[in-house]
């Protein structure tokens, strides 16, 4: 290079770059090129084109991000009979999934969740469902005797089983693996649906959230008609598109939404005793010492689906076929609260809260529709026990009177 430069060239130009410096510069350039390939933005040319693809998914006009991600139901998806509940502070809502009415992340742990699920049709039995949870926790199944010994609680105004499990959580299909996990759950069966509330995951977090879970489960109720979503919690949504997404949402008429707007008073008949109050019920009485029979007085706002739906709900519960409006209109009437109630007298079989099927059971009930609500008086139990308690049932109904205004 020196030979190519004119004699007048500056000395700096004439001086050769030291070999070491050239090597350092080359390595630096290579490193820069390599680093440029590691990070930053890379351009990808789109080469795949598809023609004639069916357009079965498009965004509806005006849809928001919350709609798209499933955090809010669109109007046409909100089903009847939605559930409402009170969400404890600190519970993070999860996107809805098929059959899951609500889901929450607990303690910031992605493996610890609380879910509220409904499945259509009562049946399968409490035992099968409890054992399903036990299997998820890698535990051996239990029998009827152990099931009967489980503690009870209330869910949606009905007796519910309270399940406490500890083990290794593997999920429904083996998709999870949480050692030292705990599961706390409540489950109950309604005529049209089974309802499950389950908290499962890290044992310490489950322990810490136990009281919150119990409060949440006990707060589950039917949403007021037209409200469409829960107070304090994410709104319910319908099933996502596709046949693998699960069942259609069932309606669950007559399953409780709160105390009567016009309270009633009553007298406990001779030989009967009042049992502890439960949510959704105005009163529960039973023959003294009886464990297989009870008389329940409850009230729900509005017509709760109508007379035919309510009668058929009881018929479903007793394993009987449904009837049409004409048959319901022909049912006998009984005097109650100064008006007339429809008398339902059924013989069939039902599944008690221990999951045991009682054959030859009887249901005697009265449906009393008022302007602001519907009152139900129902006695259920084994046939002979119901017959023996019929006089007490009649006396109880006769004692009902509106509560005097205060």
């Amino acid at each position: 290079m020196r030979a190519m430069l004119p004699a007048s060239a500056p000395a700096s130009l004439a001086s050769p770059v030291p070999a070491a410096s050239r090597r350092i510069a080359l390595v630096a350039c290579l490193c820069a090129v390599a680093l440029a390939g590691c990070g930053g933005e890379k351009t990808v040319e789109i080469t795949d084109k598809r023609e004639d693809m069916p357009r079965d998914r498009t965004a509806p006009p005006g849809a928001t991000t919350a709609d798209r991600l499933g955090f809010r139901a669109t109007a046409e998806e909100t089903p009847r009979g939605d559930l409402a509940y009170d969400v404890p502070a600190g519970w993070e809502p999860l996107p809805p999934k098929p059959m899951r009415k609500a889901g929450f992340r607990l303690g910031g742990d992605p493996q610890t969740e609380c879910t509220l699920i409904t499945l259509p049709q009562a049946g399968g039995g409490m035992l099968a469902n409890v054992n399903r949870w036990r299997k998820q926790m890698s535990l051996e199944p239990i029998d009827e005797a152990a099931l009967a010994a489980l503690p009870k609680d209330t869910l949606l105004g009905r007796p519910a089983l309270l399940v406490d499990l500890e083990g290794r959580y593997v999920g429904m299909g083996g998709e999870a693996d949480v050692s030292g996990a705990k599961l706390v759950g409540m489950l109950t069966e309604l005529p049209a649906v089974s309802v499950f509330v389950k908290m499962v995951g890290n044992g310490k977090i489950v322990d810490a959230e136990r009281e919150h879970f119990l409060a949440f489960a006990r707060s589950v109720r039917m949403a007021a008609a037209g409200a469409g979503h829960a107070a304090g919690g994410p709104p319910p949504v319908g099933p996502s598109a596709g046949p693998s997404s699960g069942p259609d949402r069932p309606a669950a008429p007559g399953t409780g939404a709160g105390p009567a707007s016009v309270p009633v008073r009553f007298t406990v008949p001779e030989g009967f005793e009042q049992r502890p109050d439960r949510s959704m019920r105005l009163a529960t009485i039973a023959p003294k010492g009886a464990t297989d029979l009870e008389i329940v007085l409850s009230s729900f706002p509005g017509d709760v689906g109508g007379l035919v739906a309510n009668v058929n709900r009881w018929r479903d519960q007793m394993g009987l076929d449904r009837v049409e409006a004409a048959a319901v209109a022909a049912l006998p009437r009984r005097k109650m609260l100064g008006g007339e109630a429809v008398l339902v007298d059924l013989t069939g079989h039902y599944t008690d809260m221990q999951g045991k099927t009682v054959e030859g059971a009887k249901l005697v009930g009265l449906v009393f529709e008022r302007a602001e609500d519907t009152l139900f008086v129902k006695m259920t139990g084994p046939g002979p026990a119901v017959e023996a308690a019929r006089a007490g049932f009649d006396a109880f109904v006769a004692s009902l009177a509106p509560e005097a205004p205060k």
Partner: protein
Amino acid sequence: MRRFLRAVVKVLSSLRLAFATFVLLLVLVFIGTWQQQYESLFDVQGKYFSSWYFTLPIYGVPLLFPGGTLLLGLLAVNLLVGGIVRMRFRWKNAGVLVIHLGIVFLLTGSLVEYLLSDKGYMVLREGQTGRTFQSHQEWEISIAGGDPAHGRELVIPDTRFSAAQGGRTRRLVSDALPFDLVVEGYARNSEPKPADRAGEGEDGFVLEWKGDSIKAEANVPGCFVTMVPKQGAGPKVRALLWGEQRFPWAVRVGEETWQIDLRRRTFLAPFAVRLEKFVRRLHPGTQMAAEFSSYVTKIDGGTTSQAHVTMNAPLRDQGVIMFQEGWGPQDPRDRSLPWSQFAVVRNPSDQWPKYACIVIGLGMLIHFLIRLVKHLDTEAARAAAKAKEATA
């Protein structure tokens, strides 16, 4: 040069190379099987069996191992070169030659399937018609615009943008689009949740990484995308895409609305299928299916035909094969309409194994006949020699 080539051929055709490759394949199978405790089958296949190499930490030290593609490729070259070098092209080896050609055809069919096949599933309710099938594990971004009836889409498989995480982005570009799409924050298994603080995430939602599932098909990815209009026409618009979003993200660019979706890789079949009836027989007293199958109508243009699809008797047409794979609802309390799930494969070499077996069988027959004739000739000559001795 000739000496070099001869040396290369000698190495490539050597039995030692074959033996070493088999041993390494054995080790690879062990590693792949062992790792399925921690990774999904899909990931193990991709990482160990479909790769050229991989690293495996042994006591914290990453060791380099040859992958399945490299080993099988080497074995294929070894078999081919070794066969050519050792083959004696005489008429009495005709059967052996035909057998080898059949084996080569069989292996080539596997290669064609690996490179060119599409696999997925299709779920149909009774009365429903479908024409697309989706992959269980692979995802894609689809961009559809213009006339909703037109049906044209641009698709980008997840392998081309899944690296858009940890500060890296991928800018998806096409001359057919009036915008670029920049992908960032990709998470292979994720769930959106409301943001804790204002300004976090996008439109009040963030993406939470849930950790990769041991079952690859259970992963639901998510990412953030920014629509960057070309030629400065309009503002950039950013959105969160999630694999289980109910519908695509609709974004307006100029006068046109584009639907951008993150979904399982979707393929179009050359014909449509309508599920007429799903039939199922359970083992008595159980919910376990003894047998199940689907009666379908295949609709191809204006032509329809009936078919009965079972697990072992698939529907085959135009390179697409549909097997009966599953059904639902499986919960007896679920009274939804029954649905049928089909495994769908588009494989150009679907029938090649059958043809290869025919060729191999033919080769074995030829070889048997040649050996039989030779044996009979030898026996005849021996008998003649014995007779001659006896008379002598």
